[in-house]
């Protein structure tokens, strides 16, 4: 070997080694975004070969699409999937003749009924008529004419989940005014289904986000998954937190689905007891730890539990949170003041200085 060449080779070898190290250190992250459930579905899978991650993601998205049609509150069936919820609602409206339901629908209805009772009827998926009247059973929202008498009649009709009778995979409603809308349940349920599927496929690290509701599996390489919490009025995150394995997070806000009328904001979260959209709260975020087998799973709870807390006035929020077993939550009221439980506060990294400065840390109510 010529004398001058040797050092050059050493340098080249070192450069190659660095390049190799950097390439090796590049995160093996697969990231996909799609539109299902009328919202954005964002799936990250870490540490799997790209082809496999892609195939798993496609499988999840197909399941979501199927679930979307099955549980859709106002769209008819497609060629591939039946709109089971629509058929069920039609049967409920026409009388007390039991009709066949799928095992999945039976499971969902039982669980939703339990959660509805636990939340003193504030989580009530049977108020589909009210939701439709306020114009939120459409893809795009616009101001509606507010018919006070009609709304009052819909509240008096008192549709409740306990009106539904489920027996041997059949169901009927004792109240023809029951109209199911699983808008506050389906996305969380889908999170649990996807997490379950990935675990069975031995995928250890993933982050699934359906329209803002997120569940984590494992972590992002050496560090836990980190999620941001959206500012209710700005296109920025107010804080971030680590989402550990099996934990889920959900927010109910007045800023994603709403319309303005006479300078007032009418959001999609309706108080079943008054029949009107809630106007005292901007956002409620709940953080849910992994749940025991055979109870409502973390994803579903992250979707459901934020609604009753959103609906209750500030003074009662901690009571309803306690009855749902929620310890980690944050409330942002109409004056943009943030109230956070100490359990959640210790997990937050604040990005928004204004919120951080005016923060109220409040203990959760005791039973």
């Amino acid at each position, binding site marked *: 070997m010529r004398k001058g060449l*040797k*050092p050059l080779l*050493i*340098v080249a070898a*070192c*450069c190659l080694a*660095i390049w190799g190290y*950097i390439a090796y250190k590049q995160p093996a992250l697969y990231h*996909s*975004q*799609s*539109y299902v459930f*009328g*919202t*954005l579905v*964002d799936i*990250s899978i870490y540490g799997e070969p790209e082809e496999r991650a892609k195939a798993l993601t496609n499988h999840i998205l197909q399941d979501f699409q199927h679930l979307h049609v099955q549980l859709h509150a106002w769209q008819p069936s497609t060629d591939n999937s039946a709109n089971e919820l629509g058929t069920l609602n039609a049967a409920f409206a026409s009388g007390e003749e039991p009709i066949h339901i799928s095992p999945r629908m039976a499971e969902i209805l039982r669980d939703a009924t339990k959660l509805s009772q636990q939340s003193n009827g504030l989580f009530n998926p049977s108020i589909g008529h009210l939701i439709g009247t306020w114009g939120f059973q459409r*893809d*795009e*929202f*616009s101001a509606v004419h507010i018919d006070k008498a009609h709304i009052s009649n819909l509240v008096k009709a008192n549709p409740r989940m306990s009106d539904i009778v489920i027996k041997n995979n059949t169901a009927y409603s004792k109240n023809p005014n029951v109209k199911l809308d699983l808008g506050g349940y389906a996305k969380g349920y889908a999170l649990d289904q996807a997490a379950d599927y990935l675990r069975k496929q031995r995928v250890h690290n993933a*982050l699934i*986000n359906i*329209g*803002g*509701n*997120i569940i984590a599996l494992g972590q*992002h390489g050496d560090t836990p*998954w*980190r*999620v*941001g*919490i*959206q500012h209710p009025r700005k*296109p*920025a*995150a107010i804080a*971030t937190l680590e989402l550990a394995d099996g934990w889920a*997070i*959900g*927010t109910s*806000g007045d800023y*994603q689905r709403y*319309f303005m009328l006479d300078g007032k904001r009418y959001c999609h979260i309706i108080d079943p007891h008054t029949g009107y959209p809630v106007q005292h709260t901007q956002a409620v*975020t709940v953080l849910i730890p992994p749940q025991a087998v055979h109870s409502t799973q973390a994803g579903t709870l992250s979707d459901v539990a934020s609604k009753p807390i959103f609906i209750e006035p500030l003074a009662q929020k901690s009571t309803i949170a306690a009855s749902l077993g929620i310890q980690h939550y944050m409330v942002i009221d109409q004056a943009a003041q943030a109230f956070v439980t100490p359990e959640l506060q210790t997990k937050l990294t604040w*990005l928004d200085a204004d919120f951080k400065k005016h923060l109220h840390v409040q203990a959760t109510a005791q039973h």
Partner: protein
Amino acid sequence: MRIGDWCVVTTGIVLVVVLFQQLWSHEGATRVQIRLGDTIYGTYSLNQQRDIQVDGAIGPATVSIMNGKARFSKSPCHNQYCVHQGWLSRSGQAALCLPNQLSLELIGEAKHYDSLNY
């Protein structure tokens, strides 16, 4: 130069490269990524003044880039939530137009989080 010198030079190069990778990051965003449906439509430098026309699911939208910021400036959607989001300037900020299946995300060296809860 002798072997020892080369070792010093090489170590120097390695140090510079590794430190650059580890430490060179800043808060500000440098690029905007536009996604259409499930595909990346394009990634553009924020260091320019430019309007980009994108044909979304329901019609053409305009994304404006100006001096390190980006926003939806025109959209065919009914509610115009995406346009009302205004300018995005920090890494990790995102704006979304559900009806048109378009999203903007600002990308920088440092990302504060993996996903956004909203």
